[in-house]
């Protein structure tokens, strides 16, 4: 069983918020921690199941894998797919500074 202390939960919420790039406002924190605690407890129910030797199933298996032929086809033109871009620079998407 994975049971986390209040402090561990708080620490964990901060870590996950950084990984997911979602800021948690101070006033949201305590209700979020409470929700997490209960959701994780609900997930812990799975620890009761014996899954030794079971292969995980990530996708429902299919007999055939469909792969498209690698040929040039029609696709959206630049103006069409740039229609939702709000900040551009020389026809490119402008992003924040990385370094």
């Amino acid at each position, binding site marked *: 069983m994975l049971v986390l202390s209040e402090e561990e939960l708080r620490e964990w919420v901060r870590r996950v918020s950084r990984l997911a790039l979602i800021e948690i406002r101070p006033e949201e924190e305590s209700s979020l921690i409470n929700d*997490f605690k209960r959701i994780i407890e609900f997930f812990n129910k799975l620890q009761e199941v014996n899954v030794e030797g079971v292969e995980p199933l990530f996708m429902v298996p299919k007999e055939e894998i469909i792969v498209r032929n690698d040929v040039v086809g029609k696709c959206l033109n630049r103006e069409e797919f740039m229609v939702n871009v709000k900040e551009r620079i020389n026809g490119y998407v402008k992003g924040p500074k990385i370094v």
Partner: protein
Amino acid sequence: MEVPTLASVIEEIRSRPKLLTEYIEEIYERINRVEPILRAYITIRPKEEVLRDAKVVIEKLRSGEAGKLAGALVAIKDNIVTKGLRTTCASRMLKDFIPPYNATVVERLLSNDAIIIGKTNMDEFAMGSTTENSAFYPTRNPWDTNRVPGGSSGGSAVAVSALEALASLGSDTGGSVRAPAAFTATVGLKPTYGLVSRYGLIAYASSMDQIGPICRSVVDTALILDVIAGKDGKDATCIGVRKCNYVDEVREGINDGVKAKLVVIEEMVSEGVEPVIKASFERTLRKLEANGFSVSWVSEQIIKYSLPAYYIIAMGEASSNLARYDGLRYGLHHSVEGLSWYEVFSKVRSEGFGREVKRRILVGTYVLSAGYYDAYYLRASKVRRVIRDRLKDLLRRYDFIVSPTMPVLPPKLGERIVDPLKLYAIDVETVVANLAGLPAISVPSDFISNLPVGFQIMGDEFSECYLLKVSAFIESILKVSPTAPSWVM
């Protein structure tokens, strides 16, 4: 007044094309009247535009070139992209998003001469079971406007149930087509994973997402499935195995009847199922037995674990899928000037996502993170394998697994949303089909105090021909659908 169905309107319009204009006028009149109360739509196309589309269809009908869905006035869930028509996912993140292309299902509807009326409300990014989690407004249930219509495809179900469209498309990751169908007395089908293309469906949990029709009858459902099912080069998981003409199968089921071996999993009708629902379900089973169906009961302990397994997998996949929203290429935007990438992305994501979406991304990030992956995501995926194996085994011995679609009557607004676990609990009957990739349909089976109840039928992979045939026969025995609340007529 008799409730019109997609099938009846299509047939009528074939001989009298001009009627299409009248149907459109009637639908817009009704939308003006009921929409202020129900709020099924997020975006409604201007009537003039729709009438222009109708002119083209009427011409085609007259020259005999019309497609299979000429006359179909459809509503599309707002997580399925429509070229040039705003698609929001009911999120602030995408509130101004204009897709530059159509989803494959939309292309197929349009090339068969269906006409889109609008885009329907939903739980944000399809995360929810009540359609209260919309960034715009909640949708109300036309059978009792103090109650939720189910979700996440609540707008699509209400549009059909309240006669604001003839048919609609929803998406179903853990029951999002079947739940609102059950709560609004409509028919909702989640096809086998891989029967219908997901190209253009905004992803929630890709290994379980599937687009499905919501209609007023089983034959209508078959009409839509017939057009949207089938291989698509743009979705590698869509193998689209199609073994029949679905509409022919349905007609055969209604005319000749069909015998089938049904099985009930005890764990699906015990914990958390309201006594009135269980009693109604048993009454339905007796009616079916009286019409030649056999019903067996079995116990499958593993089913008790389907809900946590589902939520671990769904949240894990969601956290990965929703990582794409950074506000640069589309969606809510924040100026990049003078800020680091971390600041820009965090700002956009914190402002753009609603509470439940954030919760699922954060928990999903946790179950995938180093140190916890084995205990949660990997373990859930192993439980998923066991569930699928057990269900496949049952379906070798029986034709269909049946259950109530929802364990409760439609809750009042605000009743479930306050507590995430109470909200997740109502998906207990529906998630198994998504975990196992199986097709499942909800057929209206009863009314309790004027509130709709649905009956769920789950079949083997790619058994939609047989599933729809049996569903049509069951519908003809139960005689609940097609129906609509009298105040909307």
